[in-house]
């Protein structure tokens, strides 16, 4: 699997911007992974060498994981990384059936829009109640906001893929009469 979907080489400005943004966000997710790694290693060293474990390491890794997942969703979707099953082979690539592809991505976009909306609701709720983690007393709402933002970005990606599928259906359909 390549990290760059070749179908993006002829992408328009919106697509290119989205690709650049989601790549940057995925890279930020990568830095969070490095941070999680360092926290866990530090915890091990402090525990075995200094007999003083890092009590907050568990929470730090938990919260880091939220960021990693939602930083990667859109980038993964844009580079064709999400697993789909291919029962019928190339049948669905036929120009006449490409609208199905558009619908599939469109429905996915709506679903993730709903997730973004509900997560925003949760974030507002957590903000109002001021809920925090047990040890670190870190507020939880920013992480719910990150979930909402990641889901929204993935919804936008899916919507774009849907439009793209529709457009290529129009082009190919027209081209082949």
């Amino acid at each position, binding site marked *: 699997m390549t990290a760059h979907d070749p179908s993006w080489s002829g992408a328009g400005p919106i697509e290119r911007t989205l690709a650049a943004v989601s790549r940057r966000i995925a890279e930020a997710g990568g830095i969070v992974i*490095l941070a999680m790694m360092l926290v866990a*290693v530090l915890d091990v060293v402090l525990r075995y060498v200094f007999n003083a474990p890092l009590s907050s390491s568990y929470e730090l890794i938990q919260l880091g994981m939220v960021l990693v997942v939602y930083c990667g969703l859109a980038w993964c979707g844009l580079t064709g990384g*999400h697993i789909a099953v291919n029962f019928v082979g190339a049948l669905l690539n036929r120009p006449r059936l490409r609208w199905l592809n558009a619908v599939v991505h469109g429905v996915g976009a709506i679903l993730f829009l709903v997730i973004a909306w509900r997560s925003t609701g949760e974030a507002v709720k957590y903000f109002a109640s001021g809920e925090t983690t047990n040890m670190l007393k870190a507020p939880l709402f920013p992480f719910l906001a990150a979930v909402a933002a990641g889901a929204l970005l993935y919804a936008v990606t899916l919507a774009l893929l849907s439009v793209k599928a529709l457009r290529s259906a129009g082009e190919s359909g027209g081209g082949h009469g």
Partner: protein
Amino acid sequence: MTPTAIGIAGMVALFALLGVRMPVGIAMLLVGVVGFGVLAGWAPALATLGSMPFEYSRSVDLAVIPLFVLMGNLCGASGASRDLYRLAYAWVGHWRGGLASATVVACSSFAAVSGSSLATAVTIGKVALPEMERYGYDARLATGCVAAGGTLGILIPPSTGFIVYALLTEQSIGRLFLAGVVPGLLLSALFIAAIVLITWIRPEYGPPGARAAWGVRIRALVEASGILGIAVISIGGIYAGVFTPTEAASVGAFLALGFAAWRCFRQGAGPLHALARLTNTTREALLDTVRVTAMVFLILIGAQIFSPFLALTQIPSDLAGMLQGLNLPPMAVMLVLLLVYVILGMFMEGFSMMVLTLPIVFPIVTQLGFDPIWFGVIMVIVLEMGLITPPVGMNVYVIKGVAASVPMRQIFVGILPFLAAMMVCVGLLLALPKIALWLPASMVR
């Protein structure tokens, strides 16, 4: 509509959505939420969509995935495959079919730092295939042993397959990892036995390589000791009870980063150049890691919403009860299940197969009295078979990418003896579950 009818409708809808190539995770999420809404009301269904994506991602167990993927990526990028192949070649290359056996040994040792079959097949394949071509190896044997050897990637820990199984069935990641060690070594030995057998019947398929002097062998061992050390420390640490799997993955990734840095700086093109190289390698490794994590997470969260819906419909427990009512010998049920998996594996990608079937199969298997850890191992081997059987064998596709001149048909033919070896391995595990369960049972708590 009765809950059962809703459940059946849900499953039909799921397969229709998968049929039109909706990503597996999205399809399960969608059907799960709608089904949940119909059965339990829309307010709780929508509330689940608000809380679950956050609660489920906030998991230390889930963090094992990116950290082990990063470790494998960094090891791969810093030339682990070359080191390991050289090592295996120096020790067994002079046997008949020795280069193919060396490929299997290299695959199983790379598997100890990588949790992915595809990565194992590609990285080792890139090094091993040109070498086997140079020595005039039969293309079927050469590609077959790389494709089969690659499957060791998810049997020998760390393993993304075991992590996903553990997360879906709430089993211990550490125990599953350890349960994969002995079967992984057994399967490697069976692969080598298959190679020895093939080249005994047809010596021209795999001429022996040059015999390496002892000095070369020791040097190869020293060169590869960095990678082997990373594997031993991280997996050994789980066994010895020093680390949790998350910590083992972090320490492994940290050591792999150090190793990559050492490799970059040793090339001697100046510290700035080395730093630029290291940054680049790390960035690519991280980007791929984030991508794989998102991919696995999407199907996991899909399952996390689909499984409770299916449980609400009572279908899994009804099915399990029905099977128990039939009073079939449990082993017969197991054999039928495995046969179904092998057939499904021909058409479906491994992860999605696991995620889609476990909500139904797992209750059946545990009610029949099978050990869930043991079943995890069997399941992973059967998934591996799916990776190399036609028409949809992912490993074969990626090997085709490396060995473009070999026709797909020939690769599939080359795989047959290794497939037979896998069946022998499954047979042995069915007869002697201890092969898998002995090591986790002896684990330090």
